[in-house]
């Protein structure tokens, strides 16, 4: 009777994370939106002391 010697299974391991062109475009638009919002917030912070001084 043949003996059964367990062998470790060979598991596949060649996965690669990808994004479609549409997903890359969306990510770029989101990044640009975020940068624009940060720029607006930054400009508002800079403008606040100036406005206060003008009112003051």
């Amino acid at each position, binding site marked *: 009777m043949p003996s059964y010697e367990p062998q470790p299974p060979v*598991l*596949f391991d*060649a996965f*690669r994370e*990808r994004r*479609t062109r549409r997903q890359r475009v969306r990510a770029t638009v989101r990044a640009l939106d975020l940068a624009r919002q940060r720029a607006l917030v930054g400009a508002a912070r800079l403008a606040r002391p100036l406005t206060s001084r003008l009112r003051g």
Partner: protein
Amino acid sequence: MADPDALTDSWSAWSPARARRYLRTEDAASTGSRELLGDVLRGLRREELRILDLGCGNAQFYEYLKSVGLRCAYTGVDVSEPLLEAAREIHTGDARVSFAQADLMTLQGVEGRWDVAVFSHVIEILSGPEDALRAARDRAEFIAIRFFEPPEFDTDVVELRHMEVGEGRMVPYLRRKMSRDHYRLILSRISCRRVDVYRDEMSKDQVHLLRF
């Protein structure tokens, strides 16, 4: 292993009206991953893609491909005659489309060569995903799988569930949650060379493109 005849009986039990509505109305799946799958197929950049849609149901995915202008020659295969009948009715007169009834684990009678075999929300309901993937690999250059249960579980679980097939009739079907090890073993055994993984941004769905 579940009796495949019992599952075939389930998928053949759809009422004509319910077969036409399947995945088109209240049970429609994530539109985000459908778009993702369409984009992945478009990325293969073939003049006219030859698509083998395995488990095509009423071919609502072909309808989507047409609506976004993806030029393809489409062959839909399903075990369910009522769903295929609905597909034939919906796509009557379309010369680019053909349908065949076959067991997805053998694809007996489905002869030819395609650019890509597609499993769109199908792997999770098959009794033998390895056999189905091997049969697909023998007929297509690429395999694209759209998962609603991505194969990232720690353990393998297959549940027996019930679905409504029209006129209040409930029938059993399988729902599989595949472990990452099981999936990786299957990929190794069918000599897959590489898998490109695309993640849907609107759901947990994933699209995998298998290369050989």
